[in-house]
């Protein structure tokens, strides 16, 4: 019973999220590079949930990535 309720709630949650996130914006950031392999353009991306510039108490800054999701390789041949 609870399992079915959970699945329905999760589906509704996904639908609400899909409606809120604009098309093309996937809610994460990419750090990408492009190279060529055997005549194919290869776009390699490291994906995080976000990045931010942190202003520390000493007045210095650092860029922090957070929420590492994984990596993608896209082959255009």
């Amino acid at each position: 019973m609870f399992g079915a309720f959970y699945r329905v709630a999760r589906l509704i949650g996904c639908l609400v999220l899909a409606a809120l996130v604009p098309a093309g914006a996937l809610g994460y950031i990419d750090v990408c590079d492009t190279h060529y392999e055997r005549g194919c353009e290869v776009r390699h991306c490291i994906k995080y949930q976000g990045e931010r510039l942190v202003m520390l108490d000493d007045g210095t800054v650092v860029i922090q990535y957070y929420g590492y999701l994984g990596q993608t390789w896209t082959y255009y041949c």
Partner: protein
Amino acid sequence: MRSKGCLVLVFLTGGLALAAGPCVPVPRQVLVAKPLPYPKNEDPSVLAYAAMTGDTAVDVLLPANQAASPQAVTVRVFVRGKHVETRELWLGGQLRVAREVDSTAGGRIAVSISSVAVSADGSVVALQGFDRVLIFRGEELRLSVPGVFPWDSVALTEDTFFFAPLVESPEKRLLYAHPLEGEGKPSPILEPDTHDMKTHQLKLAVRSDQKLWAVDAFTLKAWLLSRAGAVQRRYAPPDFLDEPPDVTEENFRALEAYRAQAMGDATRKPPRVELRPASRREQVQALTSVGTKAVLIRNSPHEEEKKVRLLVLNESSGTWRCLLVPASGDGATLRGTSAGVFLVSPHETFFLPAELLEGDQPQRGEGARGGSF
């Protein structure tokens, strides 16, 4: 001063007995307000970065309105808090990639430097960009190494640049060393465990004796390496912490959204898309060295508590200790010296004297005491 000393003594002798859970609470009274060994940047028109190794610190300054495409930066070197040198580093358009990011101070800003690093003697400085790292000896550009690395994943000795990529597959290595002199190429110096081909990335911290701490941000396995990169000792992760959950499936779902977007690009022939989701969450927020110890901030699953979990690895005993510091850990970093460690967050700066990091902690299993892998 005497009362602070007494508090430290009470903490050292009685802390273990009072500890609830695996982390020993640090009383707020023993945290010391001490000035950092470099000046605070209070000029909003200047963007400043800082790095420390042992008792050497640098700050790297540039006009905030040139943050997206700086032509040059000013580096000031401090040894034990004393300003000893100023250098002008000419970038010559090498850092061409800028990213616009959210600032915790509000708004968005385009920057082309993400963080900086310094060698223990202050002679070598690295500027991390978003497509490469520039390494200078004095004012001379020695290396331009392509790649993007999170902060604390690059390190410098006087003659070697170390960098640690994200590893999701067996063909990559955990750690590379690039000599600063000659025409040498990066050489791999640490291989991933073939029995554990999940996500790995090392955080790095150079000690004042130029040995290198490397801690896997995803597993908390640790290595001590010589200045040339030879493994001297391996350390098992602390066994008093719970194993983080496998998150492969939820990350795969997040990446599937990207696949759908790439396949839906009507302007190009549909590509082949390969996804490698991260299998676990990163556990290390920042790493530094204090004397011969490695000290790290462990990402907390309980951020609402406003506590920082510091893990301390003792080189000789091989044991870990967990301290619970009453401060905000969100965005915080560590700056280690021979005398202790500064915990610098967006809202406050504390100094924890090295004596606070001493002591052992009960371990769950017999094998964890001085454990290796």
